[in-house]
């Protein structure tokens, strides 16, 4: 048991299957220094994994891009109604003076 702990001196190089599992944390800066070095060593020599990383990076950045929302007009109208009722609540007489 003690021997097994001592043997962990040099981390084994990554293969592609392992590298892809580290990339999300890598992009978030959440990887340990050791794993970061292992991954960067692998990326330096593996074009396919660099492509995968770039795809992941692009996917993440496009997730946050603004797009047409899927709020349907009827749903928006309902919510605006909530707003109008709320606004009308305390001082309904002044806003709807003919009612």
């Amino acid at each position, binding site marked *: 048991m003690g021997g097994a702990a001592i043997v962990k001196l040099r981390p084994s190089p990554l293969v592609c299957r392992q590298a892809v599992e580290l990339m999300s944390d890598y992009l978030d800066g*959440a990887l340990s220094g050791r794993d970061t070095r292992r991954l960067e060593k692998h990326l330096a020599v593996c074009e396919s*994994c660099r492509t995968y990383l*770039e795809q992941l990076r692009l996917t993440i950045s496009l997730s946050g891009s603004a*797009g047409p929302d899927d709020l349907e007009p009827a749903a928006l109208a309902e*919510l605006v109604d909530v707003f*109008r009722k709320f606004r009308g609540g305390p001082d309904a007489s002044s806003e709807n003076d003919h009612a």
Partner: protein
Amino acid sequence: MDDLTLVTRLLDGDEVAFRDLVTRYHRSLVRIARYYVVSESSAEDVVQETWLAVLRGLANFEHRSSFKTWLFSILVHRARSSGVRERRTVTLDFSNESTVAESRFDQRGVWCEPPVPFTDAVDSRLTNGPLAALVRECIAELPEPHQAVITLRDVEGLSTTEVASLLELSDANVRVILHRARARVRTAVEARWEVQPS
């Protein structure tokens, strides 16, 4: 227009500001509510209750967090209560399964079917418009826990710790779910993108 400006206008009773905020956050709010409640219509109800709570509480909002974080915390609180009433159970899977199909690698674990770049011109707005639409479409097809985490983290830009705190998960579990969710979206985009004109 930024949130702070809209919130200031909303405090003055500006309906347009309310519409803008509602439109800006609706999809994310519904997605996160769906993590807790049983149906789309329950989620819509929770979102409606959330906006009413925002209107009631806005005057006392002290800007200790961003408006966005405050909004999501109100939503999560309400959605969680509704989920409890509906006896909804959420199952989270933290198993160690691979996120890329085993068939893509050879016996040594090296790509035998490597990924092809989505586009040669990543800065091209013409290409990224449809690609962004496809990314949004693929996010909408994820299981609810994945949608909630990816929406808070990558769509809305909250930190991992903020997401963990909102959803009452550990940072490590958020990272595992996020990793899975991002990988699934990438795979789904990869599968569909090739057939589209670029």
